[in-house]
């Protein structure tokens, strides 16, 4: 295989799922570009990406504080009452000897979703203020590596299943944090849809290009 082929013409992209080279055609606002061979999403052009992503992520950060500061579920059983926050539940698992499971829940439901939001803000706020730095782009790599491990939507379903299971034993009270988590997932979905990574790539200046 010859390694000394000419420099790539600028408007080419390789599909990340099948490696096919194709032209990086401009996309109309709201449209999605897909690989002609395998159909993988290559790029999107959500309107007003930077401002909307920032607004959604800031909202999400506030909801995250509520979702973690207040109890998720309360349970009343024959006159006795118990309620639990996410962190208390994680700490409880740790103390009963389930440290690996406790760590897994902490990372997937609490730590990584927080890191993802903070890192997006850390990259987008300077960008919004007009600061451009390739180092921010390098930093954004971390966001992509924590993303697959954030599972708040699964956690929400877990809360719903727990509610149904508990409904037998006593009266169940939905806490503030339950609603905050539900709203948080909705807002994070909107933030994900509004975000266009190419905003970031555009602000960097590749050497030799």
């Amino acid at each position: 295989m010859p390694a000394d082929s000419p420099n790539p013409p600028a408007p080419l992209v390789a599909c990340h799922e099948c490696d096919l080279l194709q032209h990086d055609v401009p996309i109309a606002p709201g449209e999605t570009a897909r690989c002609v061979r395998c159909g993988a999403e290559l790029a999107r052009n959500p309107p007003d990406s930077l401002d909307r992503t920032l607004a959604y992520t800031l909202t999400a950060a506030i909801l995250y504080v509520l979702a973690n500061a207040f109890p998720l579920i309360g349970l009343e059983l024959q006159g006795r009452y118990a309620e639990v926050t996410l962190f208390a539940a994680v700490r409880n698992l740790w103390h009963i000897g389930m440290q690996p499971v406790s760590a897994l829940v902490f990372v997937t439901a609490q730590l990584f979703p927080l890191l993802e939001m903070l890192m997006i803000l850390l990259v987008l706020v300077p960008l919004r203020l007009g600061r451009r730095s390739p180092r921010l782009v390098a930093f954004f790599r971390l966001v992509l590596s924590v993303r697959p491990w954030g599972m708040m939507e699964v956690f929400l379903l877990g809360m719903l299943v727990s509610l149904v299971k508990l409904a037998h034993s006593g009266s169940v009270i939905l806490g503030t944090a339950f609603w905050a988590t539900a709203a948080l997932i909705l807002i994070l979905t909107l933030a994900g849809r509004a975000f266009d990574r190419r905003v970031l790539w555009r602000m960097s200046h590749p050497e030799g290009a």
Partner: protein
Amino acid sequence: MKPALTARQAGLLSCHVCGQLAQAPLDANQRSRCPRCAAPLHQRKPASINTTWALLVAAALLYLPANLLPIMVTSSPVNHQVDTIMSGVIFLWRDGQWPLALVVFFASVVVPLLKILALVYLTASVQMRSRHRVMQRARLYRVVEFVGRWSMLDIYVITLLVALVQFRGLATVDAGPAAVAFGAVIVLTMFAALTFDPRLIWDPLTDSETADHD
């Protein structure tokens, strides 16, 4: 089939983070970094097939204790109930809560098993350089990537129940050893999906075209 040129055929590396194309180094052993985002560049994910195999074998071994050992222990003055994942599902079903039973059954039993089997099929077919059902296999990989995370459901349910139901003398819920094995299965299969390189599914197509042209 019309000739298609891939980045690899053109001697280019595409960054897995930002999609930037870069010239592959002349020396294949030389490590290069993305000129735009500084991520390490690889033609394909390094040691993809072997790593995926190793993770899948570990996940398959742990799938057994995850399903056979108790995952939850419920105690009250009148009974002491030890549940595996499956007996928990059956309990919900008998209780008339069959929609919930189905959700838990799919998330905890079907998804991890299908994910392991699908990745075994994908990795084996890639290793044998199969040129059949390429599009179907590409779609299968996308499904595997998407559904895997939902297996965490039972882990979250246990976390909440164990923390909440601690009424001494009335009712307590404890976690069993299967929770650790089950958590490990989820983490291992997620890593297996991440180390598998979907581009390997397509490589045999373009490789044979190159051979035809030479």
